[in-house]
Structure formats: C-alpha cells, structure tokens
C-alpha cells in the first residue's frame, strides 16, 4: 500500500477516534468516561514498559517508581498555592515549590522529564545487569522512590500524600498523550534505532559484535520508557486528584506488566488491545461479586471473586497463547487489506 494512502488512513483513524471521544464526552455517563480515561492512561504506561521490556529486552520492574516521580512533580506544579498550604499539615512545603505553578501541559511534561532524568541516572549502574538481576535492581529503585516519598514530608507531604489536585486530565488530554505516545514509540521501533533495539533484545552478544553501542542504546530506550511512565503517572494523579506513596506499590508495576505480557511482548497493537480489554474487563467483571437471588435461593456476593475470574482469564491466555494476544505481530493497513481480500475471495468461492 502506498505511503500517502497509509498516512491518509492513519489521519482518518485519528479523526474517527476524535469524533468518537467527542461523542462519548456528551453521551456517555461518568462511569464509562472514567473507564475510557483509565484505558488511555493504561495504554500509555503499557506502551512505555513494552518499549523497555518488549522491544529492548530489559526486564524492568521499576515502572511504579517512574510513575510516582511523574505524579508528584506534575501535581506539585498544578496544585494552587492555597491548597498546598492547606494540605501540608505536618511540615510546610519547601520553597520554591510552595509558590511555583505551571499550566497542565507543562506540568505533565515536567513530570515526564523528571522521571526520564531519574531513569537516565539509574540506567548506568542498573543496565550493566541482566535478566532477573535487572528486575530486582529496578524493583529496588521503585521501592526507594516510595520510601523516600514517605520520608520527604517537606516535599511530598509524606504518607499523607497530596489532595485536591486539579482534575485537568480529561478525555482530550489523556487520549492526546496516548496518541502521541503510540505515534512516538511506533516511529521509534520502526526506525533504524528500533531495529538496533530489537537486535539487542534478540542477541546482545551478536549486537555488540556488530559494533552496536549496547549500553548507550539501552540507556536511551530506558530513559524514553521512563519519560512516558512519568507522563502516565502525572495523568493518573490529575485524574484521581489525590496521590500518596502507598499508591505506587509493586502491584502497580505488576498491573502494567500484565497488560504488556497479555498483549504480546514487542507488539504495540497487542498492548493497545490488551490495555482496552484488561481495563474494561476489570470493571465489567464486578457483577460476579454481586449477590444473586434465584427464586428462594440467595447466594451472597463474594468480594474478590472478579479477581479470581480475571486471574483465570490471564492463566488461560498464558496457557493457550503464551506469546500474548498478538505475539510479536502488529495490525497494519497492509495486513487488514490482505485479510479483507482473503475474506472477499472466500465469499466468492
């Protein structure tokens, strides 16, 4: 398919998505809007982790740490000075953070940059490790961020966290950042640099033998992944309007990792599909926890039952489709055209 045709189809898809979101804003209830917002944020987080783990082969468990950095930096920049004074009950917020304020876009960007900076700084010692050791080191980093968050009460308000964060993260902002993340990472992994990352993932020794500066490429990938994790954290903070260190436990990283693995390591389409399916499924499955009355028989709801079913669904994916929903494949316009042609051919037979 010609490049200009693909560009047109891509733009048409974006316009269609925009129209759908515009319609959703006016016609869907707050509950569905909330889920749509979470879908966008989860996709951003999963895409950023897929870049690190799926495309570069770096088993990182530090995503919650980068999210926390992005969330705190962004929140401190958008919180009004009066609100800062009110919520810092134990210790006043340090200057200049106490008076500093920025527009939402700048704050989210700052959150991403701060996370990227930390990602860059820790990448040099951490990325010399491999496999499980790297996972443990990055998990350690995330825990350090959380513990520091608990103790730096003059900046983070400690365990009390931040409250009354302005709720700017609406559908427009969330999907704007989501599309930008998808576009940026798609362009990156389909470039020469992306091929280098895949080469490192598939065989690091061979990549090094071919003259690739492996550490430099890993650092760049890790830093970009950290940036988008920070952006996701910033958007989540504004969506929820309240954050505290307890929110950024390992479980948060695990939830993102689950989306990546279920979608397929090294597949952007898989990540997007998985992000939608898992976020929606987690909410939709709530009905299994409701009490059921069949005639005179009353079955009480069992709290946590949806997580059992959800775990079974994941188990099913891992057992019967180990490579995830999409494996390493992508949904492309060429692929769709081919499928349509095949379908048309089948119909004529």
């Amino acid at each position, binding site marked *: 398919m010609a490049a200009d045709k693909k560009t047109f189809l891509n733009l048409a898809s974006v316009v269609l998505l925009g129209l759908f979101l515009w319609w959703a804003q006016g016609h869907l209830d707050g509950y569905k809007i909330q889920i749509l917002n979470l879908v966008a944020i989860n996709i951003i987080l999963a895409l950023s982790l897929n870049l690190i783990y799926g495309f570069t082969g770096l088993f990182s468990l530090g995503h919650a740490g980068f999210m926390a950095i992005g969330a705190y930096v962004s929140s401190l920049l958008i919180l009004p000075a009066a609100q800062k004074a009110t919520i810092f009950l134990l210790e006043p917020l340090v200057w200049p953070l106490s008076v500093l304020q920025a527009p939402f876009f700048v704050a989210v960007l700052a959150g991403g940059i701060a996370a990227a900076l930390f990602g860059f700084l820790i990448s040099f010692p951490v990325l010399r490790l491999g496999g499980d050791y790297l996972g443990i080191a990055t998990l350690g980093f995330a825990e350090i961020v959380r513990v520091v968050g608990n103790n730096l009460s003059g900046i983070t308000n400690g365990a009390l966290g931040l409250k009354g964060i302005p709720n700017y993260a609406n559908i427009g902002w969330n999907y704007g950042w989501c599309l930008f993340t998808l576009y940026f990472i798609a362009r990156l992994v389909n470039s020469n640099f992306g091929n280098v990352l895949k080469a490192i993932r598939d065989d690091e020794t061979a990549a090094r033998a071919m003259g690739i500066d492996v550490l430099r490429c890993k650092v760049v990938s890790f830093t970009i992944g950290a940036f988008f994790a920070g952006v996701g954290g910033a958007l989540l903070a504004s*969506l929820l309007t309240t954050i505290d260190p307890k929110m950024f436990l390992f479980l948060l990283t695990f939830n993102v990792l689950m989306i990546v693995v279920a979608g397929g390591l090294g597949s952007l389409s898989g990540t997007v599909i998985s992000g939608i399916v898992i976020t929606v499924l987690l909410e939709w499955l709530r009905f299994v926890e409701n009490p059921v009355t069949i005639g005179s028989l009353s079955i009480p709801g069992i709290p946590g039952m949806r997580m059992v079913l959800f775990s079974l669904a994941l188990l099913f994916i891992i057992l019967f489709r180990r490579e995830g929903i999409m494996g390493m494949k992508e949904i492309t316009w060429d692929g769709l055209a081919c499928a349509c042609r095949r379908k048309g051919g089948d119909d004529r037979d």
Partner: protein
Amino acid sequence: MKKFAICLALVVVLGLAGAALAEEPIRIGVYLPLTGQNAFGGQLERDGILMGNKEKPEVLGRKIEVIVVDNKSDKVEAANAVVRLIEKEKVHAILGTYGSSLAMAGGEVSEKAGIPVLGTSCTNPLVTQGKKYYFRACYIDPLQGSAAAKFAMDVLGAKQAAVLKDVAQDYSVGLSAYFKRAFEAAGGQVVSDLNYQSGDQDFTAQLTTIIGQGAEVLFIPSYFAEGAIIIKQARELGGTFHIMGADAMDNPDMITIGGKDIEGFVYSTFPYAPDMPGMSEMAKTFTENWKVQFPDKDPNANSAIGYDSYMLLVDAIERAGSTDPEAITKALAETMNWEGVTGSTTINETHDAVKPVGFKRVEGGKQVYVGSVIPEM
C-alpha cells in the same frame, strides 16, 4: 362510552405509575475495602451496615436497597466504585469508606456529581475539607489525638511521652502528629518520636531508644497486627511504661497476637463495647442482634460505626422527606445530638462528627471499656 374507557385507562395507567413510583426503592451505595490491606475494617463495617438494613429496611414508605461495592483498598478502584454507584447503580446517597486515602479519591467523584456521602471511619481531616457533599459519622484525628493526650496526662498521669509511628500510613503519621501537638500543648514533653515502616517485624532498636529516654507512656497509632508485636517486644525488652494506641487497634485478633504481654494496653476508639456499662437501648439492641446474626464473632467499634452510619443516613433521608441529594445533604448537615450505638453525634460546620472518644483497656485477656473523653480541639 369511549370517553369513559379513555378515562378508565388513564386512571389505571396513572395508578400503575404511582404504584411503580412508590415501589421504586431508595438506593444506598456502599464502597468499602472488602479485599486488600484494609479488608479487616471494611468487612466489619459492611456487616454493621447490612445489619442496620435488616433492622430498618424501609424509609419514607419505600424499601431501602443497599448496593455494596469493593474498593480493594485501592485509590483507583475507590474512584471507580463511587462513579459506578452514582452513574450505573443510580444511588441516592453513599456510605463509606474505611481508610482516608480511599475516601479522598471517592470524595472528588461524589462532589462533582453532587451525591451526599457519609464516611464510616475515614478520620483524616482532609477528607471533608472544602467538600459540600462529604460528611462523616466518625470523629477526626485531631480530636482523637487530643483525647489520647488528655487521657495519657489526666488518667495515666504521664508527663513524658514517646511516639512510635508507621511512616508509611497516613493514619499513623497524622494521628501521631495530633497526639504530640496536644500532649505538648498540655505541658507534657515528647521525649522520642520514632518511625517504622509497614511490614517491619523487629522494633527493638526503636524500643531500646524509648526505654533509654525514660518515657512514661508510649503512643503507637498502629494497625492491630503490628501494634500487638510492638507491645510484645516492648515488654520483652523490659519496658514498664504505659502503652496507648488508637482505633485501628480495636480488633479481637490483637489479643491473640500479643498474648499476655498486651495486658494493660489502653487505646482510644469509638465509644462502644459489647459489655460496656450504662449501654444505651440502641447499643443493647445492636449487640443482641449482632450476636444472633454473627455468633462466631464479637462486634467491635468498626461494625458499630458501620451500623450507625447506615442508621444516621436513613434518619437524614427521613428528616429530608425525600431522596433529593440536596435535601439529604441539608439534613445531614443539620444533624444534632443524634443518638446511636457509638454515642451522641453532632455534625459540625466542617461536616465532621463531634462525639465522645471512648477508651478500652486490655484486662484479663479481654477488651474492657473504661470510659470516654470529650476533648477540646
């Protein structure tokens, strides 16, 4: 004849519509941590709420339907739960939640939707701050901290206190700060203010320091499992000081974990105990009904506050005379000297409950109610 038939049809339709309207239940949403790290409190509160619903299943001539949603002790889930209750379940009012950080996430959603919420045991002052629709049936941490400080000085006669707090829990950090502030304001001295992290099992370093500082009372605003271990280790190290805790210690398992070392431990809680002297009629009824419904577990302050929250909300709906959110909000704000299981409740201008703070002491392996304090904040 045709006109008569039309009139008859209209009467039937209007009658059926009226009946349907009268039959439409009043929906009360409940969001609590039924799984996750706060499940022990959330489950007890849910039991209290459902028992209240069993006792008072109707108001304004309409059936009350209670819809319970689990917030998994998670902020995102708490926000989702409240949105779901408002938008999907179309509730008229909400009860919950146990855990202040969860209440803050849910509170933003309910505020935007204009649906009244009555908090069960979310004690952080920030929960209701600047909120029109969020109320609570429990007292706030400054009140509890102040009451604990007053009890430490007036009843235990302590002049020197030590604080050991969980730096990872907003509840613990906030409450310890308010205790410290009140104790020092009353002329006492806090000789030691030390930290630990959730999940720690060894507290010997902190306790050795506290023993060395000569504290007369140790205040531990901990959750019951860690609190019991701290008390056990303090006694094993030879600490003879009084040990005080707060409402998160009000759990029967505390004694199981702490054993004989927990003897003499005092903690502040909601003013209710199943064997308290001078119990109100409502408290007696609650205790008897609880024992019938849950013979295998004792009621505690969490189940009592859950029950009270439900009863107070139903009372507010009754006083409002309608299910209009604004009317319920107004009725909740006007609550004065409402008598419940956990004592008399007045909702003040910041939407917080002004009520006595109860105290219990562990004596002979049992949690014995020793009295209540009405502190000045």
